[in-house]
């Protein structure tokens, strides 16, 4: 079975799916990613599907599951690079990709994650009385 490589770039894990995945490979990716999120403490996951010819219900479900797992592990997932034909087909198939953030490309995906993480830090600072006094 082939495995999809996971790259760490700064605070982000980047997964670029370059092969026509078997279902088993897709499930393996889910597990590998969960482990890497915990090992690295990364706050963002970008899944680049530019090279995917199709996204069927199995891969769609895998993307949703990855997004949910990373959420629980304090990481934001953004799926980037979906081809127009794939988007059209997904909608007709009836797949809604619940809970998945998307961006057109890796760069915008990174901006989304940075913004989401900054919001979260602000929120934590607002919540923290020590931080208040330190800043005043």
């Amino acid at each position, binding site marked *: 079975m082939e495995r999809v490589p996971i790259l760490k770039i700064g605070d982000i894990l980047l997964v670029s799916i370059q092969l026509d995945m078997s279902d088993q490979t897709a499930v393996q990716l889910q597990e590998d990613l969960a482990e890497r999120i915990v090992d690295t403490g990364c706050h963002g996951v970008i899944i680049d599907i530019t090279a995917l010819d199709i996204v069927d219900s199995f891969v769609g479900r895998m993307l949703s599951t990855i997004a949910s797992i990373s959420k629980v592990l304090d990481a934001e997932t953004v799926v980037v690079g979906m081809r127009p034909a794939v988007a059209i*087909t997904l909608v007709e198939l009836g797949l809604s990709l619940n809970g998945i953030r998307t961006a057109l490309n890796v760069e915008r995906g990174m901006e989304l994650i940075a913004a989401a993480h900054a919001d979260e830090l602000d929120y934590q600072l607002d919540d923290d009385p020590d931080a208040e006094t330190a800043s005043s």
Partner: protein
Amino acid sequence: MTAGIDLGQPQAQSVRSDEDVVRVRQLVRAVAVAVKLSLVDQTKVVTAASELARNTLVYGGGGSVEVTTVDNGRRKGVRIVFADSGPGIADLNLAMTDGYTSGGGLGLGLSGSRRLVDEFEIETSPETGTRITVTKWSR
């Protein structure tokens, strides 16, 4: 394997593992390209084939897929037959409903793939298993 496809001959692929589902996708893609389906139509028929081949494997206990080209004089198309000798589908109407699944899936395989093709026929019985024929025509 995509090279040198003889379009006059049906292309057969057995479905015994999830690697075979990948092969079915590649075979259908090659034939869809050969009959000059548009990119969106290629994507739709390959996606439908992926769903149905997975059903053949998961629910039918494996089976076979046959891909042929069709020509009605005006248009060309790709026709795919998915056959298994599994238990059949007990309640076809229910199985064709969006969101219904007897397994662990999303319940979009049958209903969703029907929307992605132009013709969709299904024969099923406990004795003979399930046979699904789909056709996608060029526009």
